[in-house]
């Protein structure tokens, strides 16, 4: 897990207050729980606070959530520091979570990482224009479309160095980009021809019950030598 720490004091905003829409959202979340259990709404509130503050949670936002939920500050702090989805330091406008786990590695995540390092710099650092920052994370569960990254709320999959560079260029220039697979796939269907589960007998009903037959045969086979032993 990446090393996380609170943002230094000089970049912490001096104050934080929920926007009117988020106040409404917070009240809706709190209303989901019985009276006195309002603390259960802490994660949705922190999440909205993070969105409102530009992708990270300043100290004042943590305190604002604590005050809203009538919780001690330290209890909200515990939650905010426990979950890695809460960023405690500023992130870029496009916050890239790069998957570095085995399937992506096998499919060329190393090259994607080099692109990130070359174009943005070190992990956890916002680029000079404020557009990008990136972080290596563990498996994001899109291994069928490896390698992949998550940028803000969306997955961008089937990356190559070329289409990834183009994606970053487009984002930087503010051009519209396609979410999901970048190589023309619609989802995680086979890329060219279907290579598995091609046997037609799988689909005509003839295979039904064959597992039982196989078990019965195996049972007979194992029973026979045992029976012979007894006789002799």
């Amino acid at each position: 897990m990446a090393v996380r720490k609170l943002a230094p004091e000089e970049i912490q905003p001096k104050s934080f207050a929920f926007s009117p829409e988020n106040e409404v959202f917070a009240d809706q979340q709190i209303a989901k729980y019985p009276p006195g259990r309002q603390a259960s709404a802490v994660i949705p509130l922190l999440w909205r606070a993070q969105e409102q503050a530009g992708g990270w949670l300043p100290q004042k936002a943590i305190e604002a959530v604590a005050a809203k939920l009538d919780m001690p500050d330290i209890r909200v702090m515990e939650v905010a520091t426990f979950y890695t989805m809460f960023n405690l330091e500023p992130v870029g406008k496009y916050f890239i979570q790069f998957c570095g786990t085995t399937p992506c590695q096998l499919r060329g995540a190393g090259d994607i990482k080099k692109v990130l390092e070359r174009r943005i710099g070190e992990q956890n650092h916002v680029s000079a224009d404020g557009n990008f920052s990136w972080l290596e994370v563990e498996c994001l569960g899109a291994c069928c479309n490896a390698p992949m990254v998550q940028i803000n709320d969306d997955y961008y999959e089937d990356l190559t160095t070329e289409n990834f560079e183009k994606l970053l260029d487009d984002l930087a220039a503010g051009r519209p980009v396609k979410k999901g697979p970048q190589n023309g796939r619609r989802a995680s269907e086979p890329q060219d021809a279907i290579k598995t589960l091609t046997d037609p007998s799988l689909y005509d009903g003839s295979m039904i019950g064959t597992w039982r037959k196989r078990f019965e045969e195996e049972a007979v086979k194992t029973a026979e030598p045992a029976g012979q032993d007894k006789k002799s």
Partner: protein
Amino acid sequence: MAKIIVDGVEVDVPPEYTLLQAAEAAGAEIPRFCFHERLSIAGNCRMCLVEVKGAPKPVASCAWGVRDCRPGPNGEPPEVSTKSATVKKAREGVMEFLLINHPLDCPICDQGGQCDLQDQAMAYGVDTSRYHENKRAVPDKDLGPLVKTSMNRCIHCTRCIRFTTEVAGVSDLGAIWRGEDMEITSYLEKALGSELQSNVADLCPVGALTHKPEAFHYRPWELSKTDSVDVTDAVGSAIRVDSRGREVMRILPRVNEAVNEEWITDKARHIVDGLRLQRLDRPFVRENGRLRPASWQEAFGVIANRVKGADPKRIGAIAGDLAAVEEMYALKALMQSLGVKNIDARQDGTVLSPAYGRASYLFNSTIPGIEDADAILIVGSNPRIEGSLVNVRIRKRWRFAPMPIGVIGEKADLTYDYDYLGAGPETLAEILAGRHSFAEKLKGAKHPLIIVGQGALSRPDGLAVLSLAAQVAKEVGAVKDGWNGFSILHTAASRVGALDLGFVPGEGGLTARQMAAGGVDVLFNLGADEIDVAPGTFVIYQGTHGDRGAHRADVILPGATYTEKSGTYVNTEGRVQMGGRAAFPPGEAREDWAILRALSDGLGHRLPFDSLSALRQKLYAEHPHLGAVDVVSAADAASAVQVLAGLGGTPGREGFTSPVMDFYLTNPIARASGVMAECSALARGLRLEAAE
């Protein structure tokens, strides 16, 4: 009851017991770090693993209920083994993981010799490490002047978090980050804001939290241990005084379920440095306006000269808040032999008096009785600072099922929710008249408890307020068969003992305040530092510290603090407790009863006892209940409430204020203590911050 077999021994235990408790009932010892009897169950250290027959893997016995165990196939009781090879191996595995990140700094660790991890590593540890990577390093936290941190040593049992949140009622501590990076800290490393915070260092099973004032001062095996009683408030917490040679090194809580469970306040614990500082170690006599050291004979001579020429009506004696029963008894006997009726132990001016019956000044419900109360009215008291462990009990009761609690007086953070009813006696009158909604709650309760504090009683209209409170108690049925819900919370350790002795003005005698205001020419002051004596009075101060009383004195007789004498104290409930002597008084200072005995000789009225046991014999003959140590002798609450209710009177209108202005500086020992001064300054800062 449920049957369970532990290591082949069948025991019958309540089904709600955990396996750990059941094992202890069967005599098996279970190692643990996170589990603590008085805190909620966390189940995160895994040291208490046991094997349950039928369970696929070892289970944490602290978090597994007896009722959750499955019986055998033929209905046999469930079987648990705590000593099997699997269990030993499992615990060894846990220990190995705990030790991976634990530094090997036992030789410089203050917990060394009193460390759970050290002890249990003897049983479950191995002699070599298989871990070759770097150990984790955690920055130390600054938690204020009392708790020292060494966070590398932390094993994340979370006892400190659970204590502050559950018992102390302040959510100061928490665990931030996760997994290997988990750290115990306060929010942004603020100092802890509880008057009970030092208990976390006792709870810490390793050396992560230790006592800052005592850091590197002693090793636990060097200390001799003396059981004693705390005198910094009137709760009478059980303490153990640990001393090395002549010096008291530390004070620890002792378990006393009836009083303090196993907690003590920071003031009770860290007053230790005050026992050495500012001490009066020889007699002094004032000459030409300046105090000069003198011999005992000289001092006695000066006193004898003054007393012989004085009219007994112009002689008086005041006993202070820390005096033990023995010396008050001796002082009273001495004053009686001189024909003096001006004696008083109520320097704060409280109106309580033995004249209204013993139950009129006791915490009649007793402290454990608070747990039976189902509605509480607190009048003129801030129990959090006046009797912190009484407050802990109220909070404990409130935590198992919140009951109505009403407060009349100051609006303070008491660590539980309460209805703020009003500031002064009028609100009490409204409740009596049934005009206040809280009256219904009190009347509807089966066991209503009314706690009256000194803030309501130590004022000119105190008697009227006391009577009003007694009328309310009568009205709501707080005193009936099997329940005495009329309770007085005292702030001075000596007070109930003094009232039991009758250390109050005799017929026509003057009260402490009248004496101090110039009602007497010769005033014998037994450690009363919280009262200003008018100029012109000849003051004989017998005490321990160069505090307010000594500054005003004309003759100083150096006495012994509570750790330096064997003394009896009666707490606010009327529980008689005895403290032992842990050290000797410094220099020429002597035990107080002995000073009075010697002085009586000098005055020509020799007291009839030559030893402490002779004194106690006479004391017990006169006051038999004082001989029953650790017992609360029943007092007739019904008639006391009747008498008080009959007094009547019209109380004033101003609001009640707590007599304890600064929790950390209530007595001369605390005022001499540097640690208490630091705590007081910090608490003042926190209060200012809270007020902003």
